[in-house]
């Protein structure tokens, strides 16, 4: 699946300022991409445009060379799934299985197939024993796992995670990222919007947003190792790279230490 953003601009009606000021990028192969940027840099607006919840005020989006518009939106949403930040505000149904079925029902999947898929994805996210549970009895991490299961059931090619782990505790986050890594193995495209730099370090490619513009789109390690770039866009460096960078600055020359730090950043 190929996605092309061509000079996309966006402004909310009430504000004069452009939230996005001409965004262009291409995704044409399965990749794990992180989009990073400070609060208000336009990250989440970009995510909403990607799934057609907002339409650009200027510019176009092409999915498989077809321009995204109101008519084909419904078709295209079958290929793009999104998990939002707040676990509580995206759980629609009164039980886990019903919530997963919600998207399947909307996509007109046959009932027998639906029942099978609900069971399958519950296994994948290790939530089988919670099948009939009410959302109020689940933790935030469990709710997010249900949210991603609901998208897994549709089996799209592209997964967008809009700060999906930011409201979870470390355990919940770890469990959630395990599922994301599994998706990556399966060759899905994952677009992860995050302000956790250690999480961004997991990805292959990184798009840095600042005040509605892309200021860098490169290999993750290149973006996250650029101290000036991160500082100017009010972002922190991942911890191992920070130590690496500081040591180099101060002409520290123990190759063993420097290599170990660099390797650990790459290995993630």
């Amino acid at each position, binding site marked *: 699946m190929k996605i092309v953003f061509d000079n996309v601009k966006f402004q909310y009606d009430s504000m004069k300022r452009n939230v996005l000021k001409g965004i262009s990028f291409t995704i044409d192969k399965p990749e794990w991409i992180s989009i990073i940027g400070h609060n208000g840099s336009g990250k989440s607006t970009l995510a909403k445009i990607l799934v057609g919840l907002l339409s650009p005020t200027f510019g176009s989006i092409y999915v498989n060379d077809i321009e995204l518009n109101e008519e084909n939106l419904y078709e295209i949403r079958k290929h793009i799934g999104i998990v939002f930040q707040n676990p509580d505000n995206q759980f629609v149904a009164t039980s886990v299985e019903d919530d997963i079925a919600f998207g399947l029902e909307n996509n007109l999947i046959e009932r027998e197939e639906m029942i099978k898929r609900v069971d399958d994805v519950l296994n994948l996210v290790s939530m089988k024993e919670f099948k009939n549970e009410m959302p109020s009895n689940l933790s935030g991490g469990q709710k997010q796992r249900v949210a991603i299961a609901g998208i897994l059931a549709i089996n799209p090619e592209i997964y967008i995670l809009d700060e999906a782990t930011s409201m979870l505790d470390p355990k919940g986050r770890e469990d959630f990222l395990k599922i994301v890594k599994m998706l990556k193995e399966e060759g899905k495209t994952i677009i992860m919007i995050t*302000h956790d730099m250690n999480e961004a370090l997991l990805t292959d490619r990184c798009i840095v947003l600042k005040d509605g513009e892309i200021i860098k789109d490169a290999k993750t390690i290149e973006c996250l190792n650029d101290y000036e770039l991160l500082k100017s866009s*009010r972002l922190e460096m991942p*911890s191992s790279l920070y130590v690496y960078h500081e040591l180099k600055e101060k002409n520290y020359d*123990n190759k*063993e230490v420097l290599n170990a730090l660099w390797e650990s950043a790459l290995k993630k």
Partner: protein
Amino acid sequence: MGISLKEVNFSYNPKRKGTKYALKDINLEISPSDEFIAIIGETGSGKSTLASLFNALKIPTSGEAYVSGIKIKKVRKRRENYNKIRKHVGLVFQMSDYQLFEETVLKDVMFAPLNFKKTKEEALKIAKSSLELVEIDESLFGVSPFTLSGGEKKLVSIAGILAMEPDILIFDEPTAGIDPSTKKKLLKLFRSLNEIKHKSVILITHDMNIVNEYAKRVILMKDGTISFDSSPYDLFVNNRKIVKDANIDLPDSYKIIDLLKEKTSVRFNENIKIKNLGNIVEELINE
């Protein structure tokens, strides 16, 4: 006199048979000045319940709890008694949206002092100095709190608690979902409240980097009991097994020390307290 808990148990449904206790056999002393405590533990371990107990939002099911010498118990004249406690202990909730409701930022910060029987003039003065303390610009005093950014809302909600002039300040997950620049501001504020104003600061947090760098004392909750109560250094250096069992993360700096220990021949002197990444850099260079 601070906070003093003796054999405190707490259950949400004390009358139900076989009820599960959210807090079990808690013994704790917290001084009213100069403490910097981090309360850590998994979700559901009882951290937040413990904090709401300090604020008399919960009453112990059994055992004795005193705040500034006042016993926390069910009383008829709720407000008078509980407010005596709440004057000493300020609690900042994780969601700023739970707190903000007035038309302007300034009025919102004045809400607490007015409830504590201050005059309008006094309240105004306290509110202004509290907002100054959290570095909210005067141009924002008259705007509606709902037009603020997430970070500004957080700062205003903290000012709302500072205006009560408590000795002990509790912050529930203050840095969750907060952007790095506001986070820095917050941490600076906590430190100055602790070191300059000699307040006792209690953080409930999952962020072990903050625990390691800022806290002087760390209380680890597990299944409703206190399973560890000592310094962060003691926890992260001497008690790795406890860290592992409680399912908590290590601070980034200790992760790097472990990495270097494993991959290189560099060894850190265990007697030196590593508080942040900067310390590691210094140690490596001085070596």
